[in-house]
């Protein structure tokens, strides 16, 4: 008896009520799951996503937000105590002085854009331990559910786990290259 987890992602314009992405990787019966959390200047995911190296971020600039969530299926009695960080166990800066990695756990989807999302209020630029991560709610209907619960007792989803890289004009130096590798992690208890 064990839950099965998959990483999912919404992309494209907000649609529906409550709003979610037009393209839903991994939602419901879709199995084109998100494969990573690469921040880039292309709003896509799944097996045919644009490589991060082909969608580089400039200055001033931002990546599109990553609107990701986790789908729980399989057999379990209860999923609870979920914590999330997109930057676990790396104690150096995200990339260099002045570049930010911001995040939030949200239910209200908005169309991804390359402007800084003011709703992403937690700074993950420096690594955050998983146990210090943001608390995450659940829903059996979708990550966009406006009334998430603290535990899941049937197949369902987390809220949106949203992150974005932001390069403000104030970054003084030039930079060309790739960030150090990072671990995106959602921890939870399963019964």
């Amino acid at each position, binding site marked *: 008896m*064990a*839950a099965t*987890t998959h*990483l999912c992602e919404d992309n494209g314009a907000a649609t529906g009520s409550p709003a979610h992405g037009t393209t839903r990787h991994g939602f419901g019966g879709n199995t084109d799951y*998100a*494969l*990573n*959390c*690469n*921040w*880039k200047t292309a709003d896509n995911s799944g097996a045919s996503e644009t490589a*991060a*190296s082909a*969608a*580089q*971020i*400039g*200055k001033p*600039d931002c*990546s599109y937000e990553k609107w990701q969530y*986790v789908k729980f299926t399989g057999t379990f009695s209860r999923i609870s105590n979920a914590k999330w960080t*997109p*930057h*676990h*166990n*790396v*104690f*150096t800066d995200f*990339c260099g002085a002045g*570049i930010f990695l911001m995040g939030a756990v949200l239910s209200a989807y908005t169309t991804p854009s390359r402007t800084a999302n003011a709703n992403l209020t937690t700074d993950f630029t*420096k*690594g955050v*331990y*998983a*146990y*210090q991560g943001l608390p995450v709610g659940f829903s059996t209907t979708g990550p966009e559910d406006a009334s998430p619960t603290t535990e899941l007792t049937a197949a369902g989803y987390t809220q949106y786990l949203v*992150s974005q*890289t932001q*390069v403000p004009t104030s*970054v003084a130096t*030039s*930079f*060309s*290259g*790739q*960030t*150090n*590798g*990072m*671990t*995106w*992690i*959602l*921890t*939870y*208890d*399963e*019964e």
Partner: protein
Amino acid sequence: MALQSEIDAFIAAGTAQGLSLPDMMIQLQQRFGQTQYPDEFVPISGSFQHTFATGNFYDILAFIADTDTAMPFDQVWGRAWGAAMDGDLNMLCQYLMQMVRVLGRDNLFNTSFPRFSAKSIVTSGTAFFTF
């Protein structure tokens, strides 16, 4: 039981409960005082007496880094996680064996997995910049 056999048993027990290698890393973290994590890691630079007093998992890894590989802590920890995520049993076992040498085998392997399983889903993230 030989050390390698104990490590094999540890991994087999976790696997039987549906835990991935990263899940097992989290289990190990939680055995060494989750409430004692420092807000931000500070290298201990060879003075490791308090490591054993507190049983702090991160300090233990720092001790390993200090004495065994001389690598910065973030690299050691990153590599341990990398081994777990890659399913690299050989490298992960090396870290576990070093931990056993530091802690004593009873402290590491004498408790069974709790009924509540702290699990995880992990993926990688990166970005490219040009400016």
